[in-house]
């Protein structure tokens, strides 16, 4: 049964209508968390090299999701700015396509409209889709689901017709899946499993899929650095079995706290256990009855969850978004089979499925609501910060009153979208918990030196976050600032500013527009870092036509080499950045020395010219 009629059109619309009801809040949530980091990528694109890096450089635990994250955020942000609605429309359109594909595939594989209509509904109600539909950074789950379902639909058409075009379409969609989410790597296993279930054989052409997956897996293993510690560290041990059980439990009964259980006296674990046993029983029956779709549902869940099982310390509800297509098939086929066996069996299955959907659906709704609220808080904070930058252009914005939730939900990443330096009051650093394995947040915290300098020069604007608004407290803040901070050397120098000369040692020429030339060696003094995790960055330039052969720039901090960069025509405007050593007790200053290995000769100019340096600063 592959041709759809008017009844099918109506049945296909059931699940999208259900999604609109269930995810009404989630689908309207504003940007939060990683969303800002992805959008800020577009703020630094000035050359083709920048664009290439923005699209393909590994980020966020070494992932390169070109379609679902890079193009999605860069493209839509470029077109619509910080309007979240077009982003959600794209997510929603993709998910509606997923639901239609799932209906068609299920109808094709089961021959039952009941099963075909139930599967998308069950999938939509599960807890797995709550985050991907509410948090734009999780669009990768929705897009990857599309690639897998669309590829699988093409596989079915290819098996049915034998036309190469369907295989080519399948292969293309499968490859596109790599641009959405790494989970696409399991597609050959899914395709092979279905062929084996249907034909007891694997078409040789499927080897191409395996080859592509093997190449992707090898490239991912060799080229992408993997975190060795923290929540994204991989654990190839028995903990994977425990995680597998946890994901089944999540898929079957959600992850609600006891305070939110739909039936207060019935623990979530009881629902998960009862539904888990029912799944096992149905699986055994289905195997004997040759109900291929039910068995395939189990295979789908297992294969699709497999890539995240080594993430022992990062068991997340949205990781079951794609695997839950498998549980939807299991549930839908069980419902149809029970329906045929009589009212008692149907009532039993309906009771269990109802309990599962009640708990998972409640978790879904709660999660979507939580995301909506988090987005709302992020929206208030971001727009307030935007207003503060508008009122105090070029000033250092120091913010207090930001708790842990708001820091990670909005502050940490959204501040990069604004043109001023915005940082957290150092007195509040302890209020922010750094998850294991996360990079240091030192750059998010105002340093004592930059606060002192900003206060001294009247460039400080201090704010306190008060429910949905920022209150200016600059006078009080400066009043309370430790006096010794006001005498600290600066943490950053703009070399074009004549006032910077006070902190420059030997080796510098007069300031010019955009910076100042250094000789082959030059020195500068900054404040000593106020804690570990600070990074020094040096921005500079040398005309590209003078960089053949390349020129080496070396930076030393307190006499020890800290970083070096080789300048050629492709990176004539350079940015050298490296971590600073932990501060020495009692140290007030930091000596930065720069050295260039070849001088530039300009006819008529007798000066010794190394490179132009525009800024030296640590954060």
């Amino acid at each position: 049964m592959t041709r759809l009629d008017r009844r099918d059109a109506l049945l296909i619309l059931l699940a999208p209508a259900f999604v609109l009801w269930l995810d009404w809040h989630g689908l309207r949530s504003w940007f939060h968390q990683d969303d800002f980091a992805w959008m800020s990528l577009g703020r630094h694109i000035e050359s083709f090299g920048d664009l290439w890096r923005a699209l393909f450089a590994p980020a966020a635990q070494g992932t390169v999701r070109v379609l679902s994250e890079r193009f999605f955020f860069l493209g839509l942000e470029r077109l619509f700015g910080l309007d979240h609605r077009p982003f959600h429309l794209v997510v929603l359109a993709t998910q509606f396509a997923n639901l239609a594909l799932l209906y068609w595939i299920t109808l094709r594989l089961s021959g039952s409209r009941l099963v075909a209509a139930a599967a998308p509904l069950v999938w939509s109600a599960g807890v797995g889709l709550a985050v991907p539909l509410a948090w734009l950074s999780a669009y990768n789950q929705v897009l990857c689901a599309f690639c897998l379902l669309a590829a699988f639909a093409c596989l079915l058409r290819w098996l049915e017709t034998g036309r190469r075009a369907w295989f080519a379409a399948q292969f293309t969609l499968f490859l596109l899946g790599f641009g959405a989410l790494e989970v696409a790597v399991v597609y050959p296993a899914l395709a092979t499993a279905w062929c084996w279930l249907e034909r007891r054989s694997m078409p040789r052409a499927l080897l191409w899929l395996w080859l592509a997956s093997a190449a992707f897996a090898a490239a991912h293993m060799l080229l992408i650095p993997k975190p060795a510690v923290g929540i994204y560290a991989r654990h190839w041990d028995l903990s994977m079995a425990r995680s597998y059980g946890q994901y089944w439990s999540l898929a079957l009964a959600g992850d609600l706290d006891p305070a939110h259980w739909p039936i207060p006296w019935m623990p979530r674990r009881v629902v998960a256990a009862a539904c888990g046993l029912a799944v096992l029983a149905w699986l055994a029956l289905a195997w004997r009855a040759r109900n291929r779709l039910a068995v395939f549902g189990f295979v789908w869940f297992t294969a699709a969850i497999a890539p995240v099982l080594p993430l022992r310390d990062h068991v997340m509800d949205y990781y079951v978004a794609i695997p839950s297509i498998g549980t939807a098939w299991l549930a839908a086929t069980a419902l149809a089979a029970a329906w045929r066996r009589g009212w008692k069996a149907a009532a039993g299955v309906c009771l269990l499925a109802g309990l599962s959907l009640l708990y998972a659906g409640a978790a879904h709704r709660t999660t979507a609501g939580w995301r909506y609220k988090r987005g709302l808080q992020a929206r208030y904070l971001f727009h307030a910060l935007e207003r503060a930058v508008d009122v105090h252009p070029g000033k250092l914005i120091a913010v207090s009153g930001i708790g842990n939730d708001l820091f990670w939900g909005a502050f940490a990443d959204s501040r990069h979208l604004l043109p001023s330096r915005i940082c957290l009051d150092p007195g509040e650093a302890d209020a922010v918990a750094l998850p294991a394995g996360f990079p240091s947040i030192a750059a998010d915290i105002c340093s004592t030196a930059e606060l002192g300098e900003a206060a001294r020069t009247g460039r400080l604007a201090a704010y306190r976050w008060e429910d949905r608004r920022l209150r200016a407290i600059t006078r009080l803040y400066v009043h309370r600032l430790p006096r010794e901070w006001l005498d600290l050397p600066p943490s950053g120098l703009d070399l074009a500013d004549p006032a910077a000369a006070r902190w420059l040692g030997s080796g510098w020429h007069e300031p010019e527009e955009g910076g100042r030339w250094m000789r082959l060696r030059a020195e500068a003094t900054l404040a000593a870092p106020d804690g570990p995790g600070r990074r020094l960055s040096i921005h500079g330039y040398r005309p590209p036509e003078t960089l053949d052969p390349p020129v080496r720039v070396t930076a030393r901090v307190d006499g020890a080499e800290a970083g070096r960069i080789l300048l050629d025509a492709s990176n004539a405007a350079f940015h050298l950045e490296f971590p600073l050593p932990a501060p020495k007790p009692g140290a007030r200053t930091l000596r930065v020395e720069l050295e260039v290995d070849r001088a530039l000769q300009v006819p008529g100019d007798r000066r010794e010219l190394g490179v132009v340096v525009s800024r030296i600063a640590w954060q």
Partner: protein
Amino acid sequence: MRRALAAAAILLAASGCRQARHPDPSLTIEEPEPLQSSIDATNPADEGQLLDGFHAPETAGWRWSAPQFTVSLGVPENLRGKEARIEFEFIVPEVAARDLEGLSITARVEDHEPPAWRSPGVGTHTAVFPVPAALLKEEGIIIDFTLDRFIPPRGGDTRRLGVIPKQFRLVPANTK
């Protein structure tokens, strides 16, 4: 072909959908400019100069201070570089008579701390603190008040309560 053209037209039109940013002014509460040299603790318009240590207003508009509180006062042109004094008008209510008996108040401006002012007891009083001319060169000053007695948390009220402030004023030293 028509559909493709329509899609292209929509995409082109969409490229103009990027909205200009106009941050909402109500999202920040800016500090008052210029500072007033006389402020009323019950007047919401002067709230921006009650910097720290004031509890939320009660229904009638008055409010308690904490044992330490800070205000800013503007220095009018006619007072710049001249000696002046701070007048702090407040109430010690009947309910606080025992806790605040023998209350002393200090007022600190930068590193200058004049002698403490001792409260005579229940009633409305005005504490006066001299300010040297050297501290009055800028457009404003910040004053840290400290009470040596307070009403401790009691019953369901977890707050530490000081006095009920009415007015803060910066006036010429020779004002009668």
